[in-house]
């Protein structure tokens, strides 16, 4: 018998006249895993903020544990057992695991003094309850992402959460870590704790959800048992259009021309050995494999960040030495990093400045002073070409949504006119609609003759963009596939075959 823990009824919320939520009603039952999906701006995060008491709704009603609220404060929400796990996990990097786990509880108790023994005791109990063992005296900042997430979840359970809301929880996790996260969510379910799982990754949604709720433009457009939903239907409801996947037109790669990039016996001690492959102009080559397979390290070596120990790299037939990022840039190699926030963008700088940062020394006048006109000219060109959605190039980069930030990183590299572009997980944290258009963009670039390397473990993504695929394992290339001869299922199988050989 299920009982309703949380109900929202006819909730609406507008910002400056724009309806972010329109008459939303939703019910969460005890121990239920509900996936909330929708593109950026569809209203799902607004709803999360209303449930957690950050925003108050314009009208409607929230009922938690049979208590009805016109609006909630964060304190009300927490007291009723709603816990949100944000993407930053809301941890203090400089405090111990134990303190992070217990501090909220301690604060709400209103106690003026701290009893460390009690802290350790409560924390140990909390971790034991979800079968996790992390040293209590470690600083949270020294933990891996997955461990920090576990701490955040434990923190929620310690706060007697009845509903845990997870915002994009799998973004920074490896396949294995996602698996253990799902196990924990299932454990929580057994304890009667409900989970609202906000995600872009539809394959994960199908794996974990009991029920799927889809938002589009502030409206709930779908709310049904997850078992009866397939990815294609979900995409249709999210975007309002059918994403064309089958009819991808791959450009004809001219095999006769000289390869753009040839890599021979490239080795970086402890990371990858004897990697040999080539890439033609106009070709998109996917490099895949599990985390630790050496794929990212290979990309970084090609970009000069961690130069290889031995082997040869040839660009258009000429042997080049890539010992630094500067070398790579001089050879017109571009690299779009995985974590655009950390590595790719100056978030507080303007969008325009971000676009031109790689080419700034070319945009000077005869006095060697920077010419603001050329800057806006170049940046506007790329903002238009890559459809970066912004009212004004002078706004800071952090004002953009995830997908648009990723476009901006691309724009930054394209402005420097690379011949070879290396993309590391180009659509992590990007919603479905944006994802499709970034894929389209990648193919267009290839069609114009650029050589593109994509490092990714997102199988559908690889299938949609790559002409050829290389599978890496333990630092070696184990397999190579042509796009025409492989299907999504087969590739998935290959990767699973890899995984099943793993010693746990």
């Amino acid at each position, binding site marked *: 018998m299920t009982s309703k823990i949380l109900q929202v009824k006819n909730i609406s919320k507008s910002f400056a006249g724009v309806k972010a939520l329109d008459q939303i009603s939703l019910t969460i039952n005890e121990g239920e895993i509900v996936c909330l999906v929708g593109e950026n701006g569809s209203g799902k995060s607004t709803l999360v903020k209303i449930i957690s008491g950050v925003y108050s709704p314009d009208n409607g009603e929230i009922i938690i544990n049979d208590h009805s609220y016109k609006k909630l404060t964060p304190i009300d929400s927490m007291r009723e057992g709603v816990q949100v796990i944000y993407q930053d996990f*809301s941890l203090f990097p400089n405090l111990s695991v134990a303190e992070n786990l217990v501090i909220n509880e301690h604060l709400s108790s209103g106690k003026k003094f701290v009893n460390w023994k009690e802290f350790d005791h409560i924390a140990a109990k909390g971790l034991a309850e979800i079968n996790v063992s992390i040293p209590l005296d470690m600083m949270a900042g020294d933990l891996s992402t997955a461990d920090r997430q576990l701490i955040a979840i434990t923190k929620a359970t310690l706060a007697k959460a009845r509903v845990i809301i997870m915002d994009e929880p799998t973004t920074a996790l490896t396949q294995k870590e996602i698996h253990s996260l799902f196990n924990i969510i299932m454990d929580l379910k057994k304890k009667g704790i409900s989970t609202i799982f906000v995600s872009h990754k539809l394959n994960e949604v199908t794996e974990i959800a009991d029920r799927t709720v889809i938002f589009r433009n502030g409206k709930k457009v779908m709310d049904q048992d997850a078992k009866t939903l397939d990815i294609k239907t979900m995409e249709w409801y999210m975007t309002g259009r059918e994403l064309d996947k089958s009819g991808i037109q791959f450009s004809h790669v001219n095999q006769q021309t000289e390869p753009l990039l040839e890599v021979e016996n490239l080795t970086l001690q402890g990371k990858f050995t004897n990697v040999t492959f080539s890439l033609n102009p106009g070709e998109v080559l996917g490099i895949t494999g599990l985390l630790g397979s050496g794929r990212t390290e290979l990309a970084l070596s090609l970009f000069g960040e961690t130069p290889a120990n031995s082997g040869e790299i040839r660009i258009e037939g000429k042997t080049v030495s890539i010992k630094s990022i500067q070398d790579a840039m001089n050879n017109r190699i571009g690299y779009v990093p995985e974590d655009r926030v950390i590595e790719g963008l100056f978030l507080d700088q303007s969008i325009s400045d971000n676009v031109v940062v790689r080419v700034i020394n070319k945009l000077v006048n005869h006095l060697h002073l920077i010419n603001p006109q050329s800057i806006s000219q170049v940046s506007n060109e790329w903002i238009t070409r890559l459809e970066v959605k912004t009212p004004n190039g002078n706004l800071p980069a952090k004002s953009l949504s995830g997908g648009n930030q990723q476009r901006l990183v691309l724009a930054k590299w394209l402005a420097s006119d690379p011949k070879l572009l290396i993309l590391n997980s180009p659509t992590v944290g990007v919603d479905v609609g944006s994802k499709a258009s970034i894929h389209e963009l990648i193919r267009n670039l290839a069609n114009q003759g650029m050589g593109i390397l994509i490092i990714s473990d997102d199988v559908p993504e690889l299938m949609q963009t790559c002409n050829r695929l290389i599978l890496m394992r333990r630092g070696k290339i184990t397999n190579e596939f042509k796009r025409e001869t492989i299907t999504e299922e087969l590739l998935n199988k290959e990767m699973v075959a890899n995984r099943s050989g793993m010693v746990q």
Partner: protein
Amino acid sequence: MLKKTIKSNEFITFSIIVLLSLIIGIINPAFFSLATVFDVLRASIVPSIMAFGLLLVIIAGGVDISFVAFAALGAYGTHMLLLHYGYQGGILLYYIIACAIGLLAGSLSGFIITRFDVPMFDVSLATFTLWYGFIRFFIGSAKNFQIPEGAVGYYAKFITTVKDPFVGEAGLHISVIYVLVIGVLIHILLKYTTLGRGIYAIGGNKDVAIRSGFNVRRIILIIYMILGVLSAFAGVTQSFLSRHFEPTLFMTQNLDVIAAVILGGASINGGRGSVLGTFLGVVLMQLINRAMVLTGITVEWQELVIGLVLTIFISLPAMRDRINKKTRHPVEIPDEI
């Protein structure tokens, strides 16, 4: 446990102190004496008291340069006021009035910081000049050597004295007790109170601290109240130790105190630091300064040598952090072994 102690910032600072003492002592054996200990402690009293206040600001992720002005305002202001009324009593009233003045000045800074959301450093830039200007314009600009009768001889109130073969008589000044008491109080505040943990939390991640329910504004206001009181307290102590009151007290010493807090292992980015470390940092700073005369390095080289030594010592905790981070960072498990 032992390993943890060895890796701690306090231990590193302590080791440097021991090392430096050995070097100085080998060059000048007269350094190894109880008199030296008393001297270094006496010179550390006042900077320690200020450093304890500043420590709270730095843990909370701020930096302040105006605390020296709180000290000057508290000490000089109190003195000129009491002088005006012909006060001839003891030191206690000085402490009470000065601490009240420090509390007000600190609260004003705290208010501006929290009310208008201005970074602590920015506010301190302004109040530093404001208070020294205020003293000169409204209180006075001359040094004053008139010590009230009840407090004459305070500078020589020793807990115990030793007859040193070299130095003559050396005493352990009673104000060392202040350092001990204030140090213990601040330590308890930081380690065992919710308020103290809030200070660390703010330094670790201010947004999360707000989200977790810490009253960040109130905490910062309290930090500044404490800073104001401790600075003024230090100002009065210094003035009685040096037997005169000056309007520009400590004006050029704020950076030394900041350096001492950092030497003691506090992170300038906030979130980390301890009372013991800070005290050791102050002692180390004193040692570095004094090593010059004791080792006979000529005056022309002094600043360069101090600068070099500081640069090395300041980088040590940071280097330790990098090494620790590398070794402690969880290793990604490869997909096959």
